[in-house]
């Protein structure tokens, strides 16, 4: 891209853009009205950066943004008008005030999602006129606050300042979302369960984004006041919220540059229309309806898609030129399906994997102590259904335990108990000596329990690399400040994470390019991406829920080779799988569940011989015995 690659170069490019904008203001010397309009665009763009963070990136439908925008404008306005403060300290106080207020509200709202969140946050903007009425002696009540001073000599200089702040805001927010935080927030917006299974606490992340978003709104509000020297409650009412929504959706809610595009559209374009002022709401609403139908990702989102599709087309050209040489499947295609050929296939697969995969380590993160996962006498009841009944099992580091049983045997429920999605009615789950009862899902993930889900869960527009890198969230250690300022540390960690993700993708045998979106991958690759994501956590224990279901023969072979390698490096694997030959081939202990109970446990050969297992799988004991009697008779 034009913006270059190095962090310094990127920062310099943004600085250059800011300088060009300031130069343009100097050269054009816009009249006061023009300067006001353009400063308004800049302030709106800043506000949209904040809104896009919470709405577009994190996917939370909140209608409270105009409220925090107004609160920021009022705090700063009152401080400058009534107490004659300078704008800069006033702005800082406004930001702190909004951050605290949004922390308070986010804390209250944290349990809400979806429609309830939308409505609860909808209430906040409605209270603003009442609040200004209550504080009439400072805020001027319904008549608004007049005489907000310009901090600098002329509107033109103020415009230049606003533009610089806008470019700085774009740089900061773009930095913030392009690393681990952006990935985590997007994941929270799409799939809270998966996020928590990776050690990301959805409620905590939502509170953090909400505070960021409201603080940014406060900056915008504080800058907005001096432009027209006047603010009133209806500058921040539902119509204002509507214009925010229109700007965000039209510009491209999931992007930051979309904020600038959206601001241009909601501020500049209507000025060109005759009779705009009295028709603003109607125009906004109609535009929103049309855009939702025609261009749901907005201008910037559609541009990103376009570039991506262009890349895909180029890729397919390259593929075509190279023929099938690059595709490892052509090497792996087995001649037949006979059981005695399987080891050969496995060897072939292993050699290919070895050639493709760099030396990526699956060794668990943290110290090398011998930690055992123990499940002790777990009972789970759903109403009248006894889903799990007195299950106990142990997963050793480097152990490979298979869990089989008919549908409804309680295998997935047991998984949910271990990873923390279901609380057992009785029994304990221990990681080493730590009883994890009462620990929420993300904390268990941090203890080293990783899991996959039965069905593939494609996360929005995530690329393969992002899908895996998000699994390394808890190991990518840098703070929001590092991310915001694009400091060397965040860049180094990001580079490592990306390389690790690419290596993992190749190790699990995903053939496509890692910049491709997971939803464009075939089903088998999507499942393998899930395994790679769990491995990116560098877990102590890997819980796999039917990873082989829906894979073709090659993919199953590759998965087996991979899992054997993973366990050799000290990861304990617990596998739920219906592909019984696969389980018998790879697991050193097999546990058979039926009606929530363990009916057999032991090495594969003993399991095969077990009468109870045959009954569970092949039919009731009655018919079996009758059949045997008939034969012997």
């Amino acid at each position, binding site marked *: 891209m034009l913006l270059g690659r190095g962090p310094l170069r990127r920062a310099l490019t943004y600085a250059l853009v800011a300088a060009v904008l300031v130069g343009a203001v100097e050269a054009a010397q816009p009249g006061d009205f023009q300067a006001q309009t353009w400063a308004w665009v800049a302030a709106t763009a800043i506000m949209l950066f904040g809104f896009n963070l919470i709405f*577009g990136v994190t*996917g939370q*439908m909140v209608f409270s943004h105009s409220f925090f925008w107004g609160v920021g404008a009022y705090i700063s306005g009152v401080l400058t008008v009534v107490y004659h403060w300078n704008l800069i300290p006033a702005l800082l106080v406004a930001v702190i005030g909004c951050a605290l207020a949004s922390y308070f509200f986010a804390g*209250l*709202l*944290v*349990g*809400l999602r*979806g*429609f*309830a969140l*939308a*409505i*609860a946050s*909808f*209430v906040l903007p*409605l*209270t603003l006129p*009442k609040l200004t009425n209550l504080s009439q002696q400072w805020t001027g009540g319904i008549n608004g606050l007049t005489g907000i001073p310009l901090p600098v000599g002329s509107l033109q200089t103020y415009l230049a300042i606003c533009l610089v702040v806008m470019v700085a805001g774009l740089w900061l927010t773009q930095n913030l979302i392009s690393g681990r935080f952006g990935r985590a927030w997007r994941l929270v*917006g*799409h799939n809270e369960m998966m996020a928590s299974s990776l050690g990301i606490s959805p409620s905590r992340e939502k509170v953090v984004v909400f505070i960021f978003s409201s603080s940014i709104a406060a900056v915008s509000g504080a800058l907005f006041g001096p432009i027209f020297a006047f603010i009133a409650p209806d500058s921040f009412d*539902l119509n204002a919220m*509507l214009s925010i*929504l229109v700007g965000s*959706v039209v510009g491209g*809610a*999931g992007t930051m540059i979309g904020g600038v595009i959206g601001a241009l559209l909601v501020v500049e374009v209507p000025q060109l229309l005759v009779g705009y002022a009295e*028709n603003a*709401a*109607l125009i*906004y*609403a*109609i535009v*929103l*309806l049309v855009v*939702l*139908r025609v261009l*749901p*990702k907005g201008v910037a*989102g559609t541009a990103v898609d376009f570039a991506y599709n262009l890349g895909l087309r180029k890729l397919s050209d390259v593929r075509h030129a190279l023929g099938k040489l690059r595709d490892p499947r052509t090497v792996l295609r087995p001649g037949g399906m006979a059981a005695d050929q399987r080891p050969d296939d496995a060897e072939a697969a292993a050699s290919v994997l070895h050639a493709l995969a760099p030396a990526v380590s699956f060794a668990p993160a943290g110290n090398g102590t011998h930690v055992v996962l123990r499940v002790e006498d777990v009972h789970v009841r759903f109403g009248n259904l006894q889903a799990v009944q007195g299950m106990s099992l142990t997963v050793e580091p480097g152990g490979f335990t298979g869990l089989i049983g008919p549908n409804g045997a309680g295998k997935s429920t047991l998984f949910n108990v271990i990873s923390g999605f279901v609380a057992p009615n009785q029994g304990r789950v221990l990681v080493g000596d730590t009883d994890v009862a009462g620990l929420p899902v993300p904390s268990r993930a941090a203890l080293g329990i990783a899991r996959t889900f039965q069905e593939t869960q494609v996360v*929005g*527009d995530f690329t393969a690399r992002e899908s895996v890198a998000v699994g390394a969230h808890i190991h990518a250690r840098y703070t929001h400040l590092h991310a915001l300022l694009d400091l060397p540390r965040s860049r180094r960690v990001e580079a490592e994470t990306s390389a690790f993700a690419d290596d993992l993708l190749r190790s699990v045998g995903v053939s496509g390019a890692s910049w491709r979106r997971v939803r464009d991958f075939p089903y088998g690759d999507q499942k393998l991406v899930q395994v790679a994501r769990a491995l990116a956590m560098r877990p102590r224990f890997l819980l796999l829920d039917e990873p082989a279901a829906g894979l073709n023969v090659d993919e199953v072979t590759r998965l087996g080779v991979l899992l054997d390698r993973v366990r050799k490096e000290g990861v304990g694997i617990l596998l739920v799988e219906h592909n019984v030959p696969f389980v018998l081939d790879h697991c050193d202990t097999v546990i058979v569940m039926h009606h929530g109970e363990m009916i057999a446990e032991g090495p594969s050969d003993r399991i095969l011989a077990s009468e109870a297992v045959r009954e569970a799988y092949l039919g009731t004991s009655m018919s079996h015995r009758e059949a045997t009697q008939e034969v012997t008779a």
Partner: protein
Amino acid sequence: MLTNLHLIVSSLVLASSYALVGIGYNLAYSTLRVINFAQGQIYMLGALIFATVAGTGVPLILALLTGVAAGALLGMAIERFVITPIMRRGFSHGNTQAALLGTVAAGIVLTEVANRAWGTKELGAAALFGSGSVHIGSFVVGIDSLTVIGGAVLCLVAVWAILYKTSVGLQMRAVFADPSVTMLQGINFRTVTTISFVVGGVITALAGILVSPLTSVTTSSGLQLSILGILATLVGGLGRMWGVVPAAIAIGLSQSFVSYYITNQYADLVTYVGIFVALIAPYWVSKLTGGALKWPLRRQRAAAAA
């Protein structure tokens, strides 16, 4: 005591409109899992059209039918031209969110169109059964109030009858329970969806028509009813058809009593705070009691989601 009785009657009048709008929300939610935020505007337009037509001197029943027809058409139009097309397009975070935005926009379009047609003037229509009153001792209750409450009860009974006594109702309930399985059974999902939006539109417009003689309706009533109706729906449990009735009565009671006994000037603010508290209460009640105590009205919804 007498004051309280009068307050109860006025709360029931308020509750009638909230409950009917809430039923409209639930019908829409049950089929497409979307909140139709333009529901309040259907209420407003139903009332305004009824009052305007009635004002021309035609028989009231004709005005009533016009208002109801408008509600039916609006319900259908919002489903066919706003929600369904948007839900078929991709959006960054789930199509229900985009559809919700779409209905917000549709609601604003309807409000703005109404503003141009009627301005800000208040319209009151002639009551359906005159404006007399019933005296029971010193307790006086207006026939118009009784009309509203009785009408609301009739509407609820009608919705119940449609849902439980007709074959269309059976199909609707099947779709509410599980749209995809229902489709596999050969039931036309689109038709059922449209019918439930039409029924929702009719019920909501009727709410506006019933209430308009009593409290004059303006173009801004739409948004107000959207918010209060949705509050009743959320407190009663989204998708729980009859949960809105007790919730609506509770909201009506608290509104009347707060504005009479505590404050009139800030009655709105108190309502908003109340909405906020009611929405966050379920989470905090169960959180603070360690999950021992669950908001009774939400349990079923949580189970349905799981």
